């Protein structure tokens, strides 16, 4: 190998500090772009602020968007500079470049930086997850419980082909086809299914939990001011999967009470038929959660 490893045969030695230029341009661009993205783009990423969990996700997305901006900037600067500056001239298209085979320092630096970024992201994600469950289904034994979870308002979400039914155990097991939640309340949803796997997705609230047959999948949400949201099934569950959606509402507690009273009146006429256990020829419903919350290990 020649004394100067960057020497190209047939070409004058290139003494430009290409690397320094790219690094400087990258740092400047990132310093400008990252705050702009964090301030102007980040807060608009769904699911938004309709619930505490949704807000947590939006914050999470905001941080990660800001985090990937410098990476995008590096790539833009590197390829923008490199592809233009090192484009082969037609006359010397087959000239070889400098035979640089390795650079231990660059490799080491790159690995250290990517590792640090990964560890930070994993730590940050874990913190955000454990803080309040982040709106995700946690299975029958939730570990990420928000403060005050013991007195949470409970709702059971029962998926079946192809609709969701909502049960309110504290209201005498009253059932409804529309999901209403009281405002400013911590709600504990128990998601389950009667047949195949569904996934309960309350889009604007930032909730998603698979509905598995025979499994109690717990998800927490702290509602805020009254609003409306969409509920969709997010796991392919057969023929009419696409039609498995409805609207939900977060309402003030007074409104919720009057709605509940009305629904209970309707429900009262059905209740005698639904109260029987499956063994007695009744429908597969009961006042308690059904299927029974299956407390499984793990």
């Amino acid at each position: 190998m020649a004394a100067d490893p960057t020497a190209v045969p047939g070409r004058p030695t290139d003494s430009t500090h290409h690397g320094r230029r790219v690094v400087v341009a990258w740092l400047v661009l990132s310093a400008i772009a990252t705050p702009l993205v964090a301030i102007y783009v980040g807060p608009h990423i769904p699911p938004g602020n309709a619930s505490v969990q949704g807000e947590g996700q939006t914050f999470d997305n905001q941080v990660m968007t800001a985090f990937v901006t410098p990476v995008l900037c590096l790539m833009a600067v590197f390829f923008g500079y490199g592809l233009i500056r090192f484009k082969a001239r037609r006359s010397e298209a087959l000239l070889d470049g400098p035979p640089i085979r390795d650079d231990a320092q660059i490799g080491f630096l790159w690995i250290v930086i990517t590792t640090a970024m990964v560890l930070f992201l994993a730590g940050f994600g874990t913190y955000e997850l454990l803080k309040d469950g982040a709106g995700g289904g946690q299975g029958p034994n939730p570990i990420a419980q928000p403060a005050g979870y013991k007195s949470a308002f409970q709702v059971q979400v029962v998926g079946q082909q192809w609709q969701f039914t909502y049960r309110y155990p504290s209201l005498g097991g009253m059932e409804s086809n529309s999901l209403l939640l009281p405002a400013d309340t911590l709600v504990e949803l128990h998601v389950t299914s009667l047949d195949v796997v569904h996934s309960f997705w309350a889009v604007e609230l930032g909730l998603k939990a698979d509905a598995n047959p025979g499994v109690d999948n717990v998800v927490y949400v702290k509602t805020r001011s009254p609003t409306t949201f969409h509920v969709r099934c997010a796991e392919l569950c057969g023929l009419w999967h696409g039609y498995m959606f409805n609207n939900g509402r977060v309402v003030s507690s007074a409104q919720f009470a009057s709605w509940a009273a009305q629904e209970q009146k309707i429900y009262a006429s059905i209740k005698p038929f639904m109260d029987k256990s499956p063994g007695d020829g009744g429908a597969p419903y009961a006042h308690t959660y059904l299927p029974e919350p299956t407390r499984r290990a793990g």
Partner: protein
Amino acid sequence: MNQAAAPPSPPLWRRLLGFNVLTAVILGIGGWYLGWYGAHKIVAPSLDYFGDIDYNELSVYLAYIGGVLGFLVGLGFLNYPVRRLLGYPPSLREKETAGWSRYFGLCTDHKVVGIQYLWGIGLFFFIGGLNAMLIRTELLSPHHQAFPAGTYLTIVGMHGTMMMGIMTSGILGPFANYFVPIMLGARRMAFPRIEALTFWLLMAAGAVLTTTIFFGGFPTGWTGYAPLATESNPGLDNYVIFFALVGVSMTLLGLNMIATILTMRAPGLTWTRLPIFVWGVLSTAVLMVLAAPVLIATLGMVALDRTAQTSFFIPAAGGSNYLYENLFWIFGHPEVYVLALPGFAIVLELLPVFARKPLWGYRLAVAGLLGVSLLSWFVWQHHLFVSGINGDLRAFYMLSTELISIPTGITFLCGMMTLWRGNIRFTVPMLFVLAWFFNFLIGGLSGVFLSDVPSDVTTHGSFFSMAHFHYTIMGGLVFTFFAAIYYWVPKMTGWELNERLGKVHFWSMFLFFNLTFAPLFAVGFLGQPRRTPVYPNGLQFLNDWVSISAFCLGASMLVFLFNLVWSLAFVKKPAGANPWASRSIEFQLPSPVPVHNFDRIPVFSGDPYGYGEGPTPVAVPAGAPAGRE
């Protein structure tokens, strides 16, 4: 055809008799009916009543097993063992001659198998692509319009299953089969007959999946989640048989690659001189061999649940849908790296040629490939973050998933540093390689969002994740697949592909690929789940935009198809031995490569990346004089 003035060739009808694809199809159909008939004799009293297929899954399984066996017998896969059993001297080389007829049967020449793979995979890639066009047609309107609900789900399922199943061998099938033996300085693969078997199994599998439409299709998508799969119509049996055949093909392909790379390297070809493409193939092959058997076993359980009333995956009868999800993704996540890793390898293999610099950080690049391969075993539950399974392990899977960015980042670094200070030629294969950086960057960064549990809660199962894996698989695999086609097809056929049409193909594909999939990130964030024919009215503009871009993306594939047919069937411009001025050993051989590759086994003296390091050849003797028989 071109076997000059040998004895006068027999008439066409005589030449069509024998062990070839025609016989195979006929025996396949015969075997199909035999299995169908047998199963009805076993289970159902009536053969006449077509409606009873609803209740007789066994007949579907036995029919297709009989069909596949008949197909393989017709191709001549039993000739060798039967001749051995009867004490005749077996023919060790099948159709290793010249002439077009060897492409239509069992051929043990690895170069023929490579070309067979290219066309076979191309056919099913085209069918899968047509399904994508149909999906986007339905999604032009937020309401139900083009297809009945069941048909729509079948189209979605066929698109996904076809792409994930057939394209698994997208690079290893055509290009590794063709070039790995040459790069190793060998004359064949370790198991040539098994090599041919992997191809024909894949073709049988493709036919099985396509005929699902005669059995009502299947509603599960490519993931086939139980218990939905258990209650589905007989079309799901086609899915099960398809994926099981693909699994067998993958396992054998991987084993063959590993055996070849471990045992058949020419003298002097040490591990540090191996082309990086071969390393990529090795790391992929290890994943194939270890992951695919899990899939086969899982599908075996699904088949038993559907035929023999077992209940592995039926919760109501004591089974568990979590078991299915776990098993499927233990296969499924390595599977997506089976799709991505060959792309990494192609990128790192082609960059030195077109930047005219040695591959930067060879050992680091190898470590990156093997690192992805290893880590891909520890991440599968990130597909189940909101499923309620192992809620307390989510933090671990978040970490392990994000750790994959480190070896992937190494691949990026090695590629970028290879470009740096190079002398870059923007040829068509190079454009596709550069597009990989862009696509995989977007795919990888969106993957960071999906790996983060709080962010995944919203994006999971939505069009966001769909856009993510199209950026990584279509942007990562299909773009490099085309890079490999433009780079190597001149070598394989001896004819150049039109460069101008290639550039039109590249720019239209790159543009419309991004116009198609970038808006889908927003669509997913805004609440559109995957696999639904209906969506909120407010998302119609974005969906129409995506559909129209997708049609243009489909049209760009027609440009490619035209280029292929035009260049290879009409123009036929000879490519020359080394159209790219590459130092790799396959380009030191004539185009197309002669039947026995090398007259003498070469002795390697370095890796193929010595650009700028003087004229030392990669191997002595540097290729062989055209040794045509």
